[in-house]
């Protein structure tokens, strides 16, 4: 029988024949992660943006800031609204009438991780205490869904915030705060936030998703592997080697040893991702000075 037909008709057997030789269908080793690239500034209409590719999985994230009045309980804090979209272009399984099941789950998980990791200090998003603060809308669009969606989405969110530069803001005659775009009236208005334009990010979270099949751990599964093996563990660690979050949403049982292996794989991955991020920031700075 032809290989392609065997792959479609007996996917589990196809995968297990490969795992028996300690290799995966796309020729990766069991704990090898796909190539990751980050490009900052992909969307020129947004205040901060990034395009991330993790193998074939492609995500584009953009942050847009709007001025709003802070709540009474926290008058010197801004807020962040995170949304993850899976438009029908990303996968043959997503239909126009019905949004993908994974999208709201990933949305919520992303929001939780970004808040609990302490990367964003909401006090930095405050403009005038009690009167005006930033509401940051983070929109992440999946352009091609090929497994490890949460990992790619998290990298793109972090990269977009790294690239973010808050627009200049001034107070009008009626007391309302408004943004001043571009070079118009640079000398006319008095700016509230002339000095502080970039956010200082705290501990940056990095994640790794592993698929668990019997007692084999596959790091960074593709969508084909995810559809066969329906048990995954997502581990999020931050730059000080602390575990921010572990998610294993049901699936077949796994031993503590397997979970510990996933955590150590995530820690290794953190070093790789940190290098990728710093390289992309340097690449952007080189482009800007040219």
């Amino acid at each position, binding site marked *: 029988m032809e290989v392609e037909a065997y792959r479609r008709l007996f996917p589990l057997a196809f995968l297990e024949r490969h795992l028996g030789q300690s290799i995966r269908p796309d020729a990766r080793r069991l704990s090898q992660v796909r190539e990751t690239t980050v490009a900052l500034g992909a969307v020129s209409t947004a205040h901060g943006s990034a395009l991330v590719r993790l193998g074939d999985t492609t995500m584009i994230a953009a942050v847009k800031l709007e001025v709003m009045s802070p709540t009474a309980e926290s008058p010197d804090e801004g807020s962040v609204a995170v949304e993850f979209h899976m438009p029908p272009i990303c*996968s043959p399984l997503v239909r126009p009438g019905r949004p993908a099941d994974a999208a709201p789950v990933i949305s919520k998980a992303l929001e939780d991780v970004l808040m609990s990791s302490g990367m964003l200090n909401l006090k930095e998003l405050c403009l005038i205490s009690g009167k005006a603060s930033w509401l940051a809308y983070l929109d992440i669009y999946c352009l091609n869904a090929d497994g490890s969606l949460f990992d790619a989405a998290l990298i793109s969110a972090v990269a977009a915030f790294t690239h973010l530069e808050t627009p200049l803001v001034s107070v009008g005659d009626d007391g309302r705060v408004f943004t001043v775009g571009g070079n118009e009236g640079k000398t006319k208005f008095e700016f509230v936030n002339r000095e502080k334009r970039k956010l200082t990010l705290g501990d940056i979270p990095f994640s790794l998703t592993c698929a668990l099949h019997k007692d084999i751990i596959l790091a960074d599964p593709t969508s084909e592997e995810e559809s066969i093996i329906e048990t995954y563990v997502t581990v999020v660690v931050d730059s000080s080697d602390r575990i921010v979050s572990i998610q294993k949403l049901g699936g077949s049982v796994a031993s503590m040893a397997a979970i510990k292996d996933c955590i150590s794989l995530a820690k290794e991955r953190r070093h790789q991702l940190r290098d990728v991020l710093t390289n992309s920031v340097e690449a952007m700075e080189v482009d800007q000075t040219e």
Partner: protein
Amino acid sequence: MEYVNPLTGFRVDGRRPNEMRQLKAEVGVVARADGSALFEMGNTRVIAAVYGPREIQNKGQQVNNKEALVRCEYRMAEFSTGDRRRKPKGDRRSTEISLVIRQTMEASILKDLMPCSQIDIFVQVLQADGGTRSACINAATLALADAGIPMRDIVTSCSAGYLCSTPLLDLNYVEDSAGGPDVTVGILAKMDKVTLLQMDAKLPMDTFESVMGLAIEGCKAIATYIREVLLENTKRLECQRG
């Protein structure tokens, strides 16, 4: 506001009245789709993905079982325009443009070769700077060609307007929101037939003919570019096959 400088003849972005924005196209950007393309016209950036022909998912929608069913959905990303949009896909403008793109592409797809099947065209706007409708149709043509779906001809589209007594080709967002007439034309390039024609605002008959003629010229230029891109892509695929 001065959309065309009376002394130099340049527009707000430095183009001449009959000059189109810079075009850039890339085929095969979405690996999981049967066919996909990224199309840029200046700052307007659009991704189209085609899935099909595949099994009909909702038998209730099938009208004629001797032809393929073509579906299209147009969406704008929330960060694509200057102000963040609240309702990116359910609103009336998106529904109208989805219908327009579907009917324009249906004129070219040879539907009776693929009965009892469905072809889905999904278009996502990443950056909007005027002319999104045209960019979407051009991207959809490339994506359909990449998916290998049989078509009568390449469908290309371009817009033109009339401001400060000059016909202008390929309006950007600033010129589009100036309130002048906006003519969008979609043609089957080699057959020289018009499939899409939309115009709003009042325009005298002879001015309309010159503006439409300009838009058709623009469409033909885009068709030449699309043909080059498809030829490059085919050569690349041929090299890969060895």
